[in-house]
């Protein structure tokens, strides 16, 4: 008999790949790149026997194209890459947003720009994951801080893509991707899995791009008989290209609106020691691991530090920062970039409380000591 929870020692990339399979992903297209390659290798081995499809494409542009193509037929589909490949995918990530096709894109961040440092960790793609493709568009971006959480957030990412008919980006840190840790792996049959909304209406009344500004319209699989048109051009509710200002306005506002209106379903963060905190550290991914140690040490030394750890970077957990600012708490934001999420924190703090940035761009992790020192140094 299968135990409800099985403890397994897994690498971050493996946990991500296995979680995607458990969440129902049955199509993978990718192009090898460090530090994400183990995900492709896992999929190449596991997918065929599950009746799924694996293909190594000629580049990352082809990979994201094939993923969107597969998803158009109704398959849960994903790719995995890193900085240079993520840059190549941007045009078609926008296409997936525009035609509202679910897919999962894993970007294991490495040092950039350009080839940068392929095996060194960095958190430099936070803004790219939000604004990498051109034009106004929705973005759902998730980032875990452990291998265990990588498993659960991958399942969540696949679900959100389906639920919202939109690409979801999982930002992994190189060190989490390559770390081996225990995973509390559930019985996959017990996971709550979501499917994209599918039509039940007759073909003539079906509006695959219709609905109010906060609506996720149903989508038919290719081959179901609905004979839809998908285009990256601005299109009306039926999918016909349009140059109408009203149609354009409605489409762009709905694409963004369907995600913004349901932030509560998406946004998640964890608060630790916030009840009596005097100062706060806001950190995510691998930096949050060092930050947590620093916060705990600070407390032993009489400084009542608290911590906010977003697992959703986009939409950003506005409320978490609002609350800290309302409580008058100074916020320290350690990031492995020259300041990306801190811009959101500054925007929300709006001058009410001091916000301090702490940056590392040398390919080394933060030590708890340097975060502790920054806390003690004051704001």
């Amino acid at each position, binding site marked *: 008999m299968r135990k409800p929870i099985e403890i397994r020692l897994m690498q971050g990339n493996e946990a991500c790949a296995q979680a995607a399979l458990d969440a129902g992903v049955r199509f993978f297209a990718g192009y090898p790149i460090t530090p994400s390659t183990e995900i492709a290798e896992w999929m190449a081995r596991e997918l*065929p026997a599950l009746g799924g499809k694996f293909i190594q494409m000629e*580049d990352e542009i082809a990979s994201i194209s094939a993923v969107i193509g597969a998803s158009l*037929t109704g398959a849960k589909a994903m790719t995995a890459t890193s900085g240079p490949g993520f840059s190549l995918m941007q045009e*078609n990530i926008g296409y997936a947003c525009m035609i509202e096709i679910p897919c999962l894109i894993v970007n294991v961040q490495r040092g950039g720009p350009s080839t940068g440092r392929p095996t060194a960790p960095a958190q430099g793609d936070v803004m790219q994951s939000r604004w990498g493709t051109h034009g106004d568009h929705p973005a759902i971006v998730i980032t875990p801080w452990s291998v265990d959480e990588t498993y659960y957030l991958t399942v969540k990412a696949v679900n959100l893509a389906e639920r919202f008919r939109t690409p979801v980006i999982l930002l992994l840190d190189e060190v989490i991707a390559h770390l081996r840790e225990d995973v509390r792996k559930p019985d996959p049959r017990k996971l709550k899995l979501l499917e994209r909304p599918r039509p039940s209406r007759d073909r003539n009344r079906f509006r695959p791009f219709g609905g109010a500004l906060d609506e996720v319209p149903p989508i038919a699989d290719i*081959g179901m008989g609905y004979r839809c*048109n998908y285009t990256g051009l601005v299109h009306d509710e039926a999918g016909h*290209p349009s140059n109408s200002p009203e149609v354009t306005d409605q489409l762009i506002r709905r694409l963004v609106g369907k995600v913004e209106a349901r932030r509560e379903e998406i946004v998640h963060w964890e608060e630790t020691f916030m009840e009596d905190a005097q100062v706060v550290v806001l950190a995510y991914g691998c930096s949050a691991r060092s930050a947590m140690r620093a916060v705990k040490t600070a407390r032993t030394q009489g400084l009542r530090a608290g911590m906010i750890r977003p697992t959703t970077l986009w939409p950003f957990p506005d409320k978490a920062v609002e609350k800290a600012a309302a409580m008058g708490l100074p916020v320290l934001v350690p990031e492995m970039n020259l300041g990306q999420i801190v811009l959101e924190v500054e925007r929300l703090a709006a001058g009410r409380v001091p916000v301090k940035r702490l940056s590392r761009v040398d390919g080394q992790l933060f030590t708890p000591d340097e975060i502790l020192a920054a806390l003690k140094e004051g704001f």
Partner: protein
Amino acid sequence: MPSDIIRYFREEMLPHIWCPGCGNGIVLRDIAVALERLNLPRDKVVIVSGIGCSSRAATYLDFDTVHTTHGRALPFATGIKMAKPDLHVFVIMGDGDASAIGGNHLIHACRRNIDLTAIVFNNSIYGMTGGQYSPLTAMGKKATTAPYGMFEPSFDICRVAEASGATFVGRSTTYHNQLLIRLIVEGAENKGFSLIEAVTHCPTSYGRRNKLPAPSDMVRWQKENAVLINKIRDGAAQLKEGQFTIGVLHRHEATEFTEAYMEVVRRARKQ
């Protein structure tokens, strides 16, 4: 003359966006006639296209249609075909779409021999963006980005496809449209990657600049310069400077990609 192809069109999408005298409508009509002859289950046909004047053809057809991004129609189609091999996937591309920005995807789709039927609308120019040269623009011809004449050698896209592993390669023109229909039908029947080059005319962005101002001049040029491959093979004709062959230019047998993948599945399940 087939009468019933209008049922394959989204009439609410008409009139089309093409210029008066453009050859794209002829190729689109020929595709519709070929689809009628093939008589495939309506809901199992998918039409994928890239970006360009020609790629808009997909949006007029009443099937599942996917108008993708510039140059990427083939990898999208690859994902569709691989995920659901029972679908009949047709891919519409322009000459720039297929041979420049999408050139790498083309050679790899050919190499895989995946069962797609690709139709390249070759008007020797970037029509949609107003007449810049493409890798299929012939030496010396004028384009807005080759105001002194094309100075780069061009591709023969059929030879590229053949060398890359396509199992069916054919070429015809908007003048030789009955042949074009037959090639599309045969290409679709081929279990593997088929490339059909449809030489078409763009009076607006090409003809005006290249001493063929009227659409009829361009069609006459096709008539005079296209030579049936069988006549060359039989020795009944010889290609003169500037002429090109039409007909079934190449075919060979090879394992189709999605079938090869089924073998992978069998091996994986044995382990």
